[in-house]
């Protein structure tokens, strides 16, 4: 009888433990920007994350001006993703600028590059477009703005390496069919519209296969003036002074 009661009490205690056990990694509360922005990292994770409903790109270490412009684009309805727009709707420019600076300042390791799945001819064509562009179509080389190492140019132009092929494909495709819109003039929309769908596929695969150089940083300032005007990116100053 007593043993039965003890067993029952033990069972109850075990159930209570189960019901109240906290996850192992619950960090203690800290009054920091990172704590305030758990709303972002829940989906984006430290390095971006693929989920059932799509891909949440890496935001850590992207240039602050680029991140700020994307936050504005989502909040102000130029980029269409309901969850992002709703989240940002009650936030003002000053806080968005701080959020952008916070994530830009994170220095987290990049995943290893994807294996290259292109034929030799396709590989050469992609590498040529990236490094030289196509003067006949007035297509600038990616490296002109995104940096010789394709790791971006501070503070407005993002790197193109260290990103998954599907994400790159989706972004260039979205620019091409008007689903991704930046501030006018939307230079990347104009460029994506010059590219054939199979070229976009080749460039995305090639970029995704490039390793991120160890300790890679975005360049400061453009080596040559930007060949096209891009909304939200000042054309003067060292890579455009932050506004």
């Amino acid at each position: 009888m007593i043993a039965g009661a003890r067993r029952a009490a033990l069972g109850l205690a075990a159930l209570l433990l189960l019901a109240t056990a906290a996850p192992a990694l619950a960090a203690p509360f800290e009054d920091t920007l990172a704590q305030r922005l758990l709303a972002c990292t829940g989906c984006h994770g430290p390095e971006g994350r693929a989920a059932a409903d799509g891909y949440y790109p890496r935001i850590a270490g992207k240039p602050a001006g680029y991140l700020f412009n994307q936050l504005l684009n989502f909040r102000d309805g130029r980029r269409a993703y309901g969850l992002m727009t709703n989240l940002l709707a009650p936030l003002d420019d000053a806080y968005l600028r701080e959020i952008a600076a916070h994530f830009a300042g994170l220095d987290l390791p990049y995943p290893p590059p994807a294996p290259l799945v292109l034929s030799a001819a396709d590989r050469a064509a992609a590498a040529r477009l990236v490094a030289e562009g196509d003067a006949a179509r007035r297509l600038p080389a990616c490296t002109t703005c995104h940096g010789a190492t394709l790791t971006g140019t501070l503070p407005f132009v993002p790197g193109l390496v260290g990103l998954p092929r599907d994400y790159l494909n989706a972004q260039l495709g979205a620019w091409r069919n008007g689903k991704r819109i930046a501030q006018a003039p939307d230079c990347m929309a104009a460029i994506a519209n010059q590219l054939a769908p199979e070229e976009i596929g080749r460039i995305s695969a090639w970029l995704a296969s490039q390793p991120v150089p160890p300790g890679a940083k975005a360049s400061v300032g453009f080596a040559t003036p930007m060949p096209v005007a891009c909304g939200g990116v000042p054309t003067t100053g060292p890579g455009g002074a932050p506004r």
Partner: protein
Amino acid sequence: MTRRRRLGIVGLSILGLLAGLAGVVAWLNLLGEERLGPPPPRVAASAELLARGEALTRAGDCTGCHTARGGRFLAGGRAIETPFGNVYASNLTPDPDTGLGRWSADEFWRALHHGRSKSGRLLYPAFPYPNYTRVSRVDADAMFAYLQSLPAVAQANREHTLAFPFDTQAALAVWRALYFRPAVHVDDPARSAEWNRGAYLVEGLGHCNACHSARNALGATRGTLDLQGGLIPVQNWYAPSLASPSEASVAAWPKREVVQLLKTGIAPQGFVMGPMSEVVLNSTQYLSDADLAAMATYLQALPPPTESDPPPAVVPAPSARGAALYNDHCVACHGERGEGVPGAYPALAKSRAVTMRSPANLVHIVLEGGFPPSTAGNPRPFGMPPFAPVLQDADVAELLSFLRSAWGNRAAPVSTLDVARARAGRD
């Protein structure tokens, strides 16, 4: 009498009756209106007048509708979604062709007070003139002077996309005959000056009951005094009752905390989220402490509803599955006993936001996450991640039922169907 003659008389009587009704509708629509005289010559507005106009325009949250997402300030274009179709807010900047550039102060007053456009066309009550009709002429003139001082933006107004018959002026005239009378705010001498100022702001410019009141099948509220809560059409957020102690009554709060909530978006006993977040962002954070205190005085004095919600008959014990979901997704911020973190994460234990009859807002917040507004008093709000990408409807129902039965909370469970309906924008 021949059959034909009898038919004729009946027909004539019906026609007469219809004409009479139309006359009554027309008369009710013009009730209390004076013919507008020629516009007086424009005089330069003083800085003091413009500042007052700006404050009043903020109090009316004009920008909440008249500034499109990412659009120019007060240049219109935002869709106000209603069950009858979309109404597009108009351009309030002084552009002569697309905005208010050719309007007179009299015409602006008539729009606020009588709900008519410059041309005399009847305006849709998505523009809350059933509330703005209470704005004084002096305040309307200050707002008009401020709007006329804005940079002119040439941006043509969009045609409303309303279904027949709601797209006709005749239907609107009938609606107005049924539900709209011009009104003026009259101070209640039995109340304090502060209460009266609060009443003027809450019932008039603040148009609080545009959301915090139920609407009938024709979209009409029960009057500007009703703040008994209502589901916001289409958006499907529930604007809680401001009178009910089991919803969002602030009668038991210290007054300074009511002011704090409207000024900063967060207070010790509550946060604003969803549509109210945008109200604080665009409107109430800009109000003076005196005006916010007046609104608080008025809201705290609202009489509680005569009948309260009956307590739920059965509240099942917290489920192990719900507890597991809570531990996986919520406990890190909201705490093991739902205690939250003051100033950062709201407590869920003994929280009216959790136990309120309508679970609509809980479903929104869990699925979409959110931030309170960034305001001068709370410039870096703490956010909640959206769980729509990771939780199925059945999970959300389990989790919410757990919240509503744990830590002393006692509210009816939430079903998967409730979640699906909330997700689909129905209740």
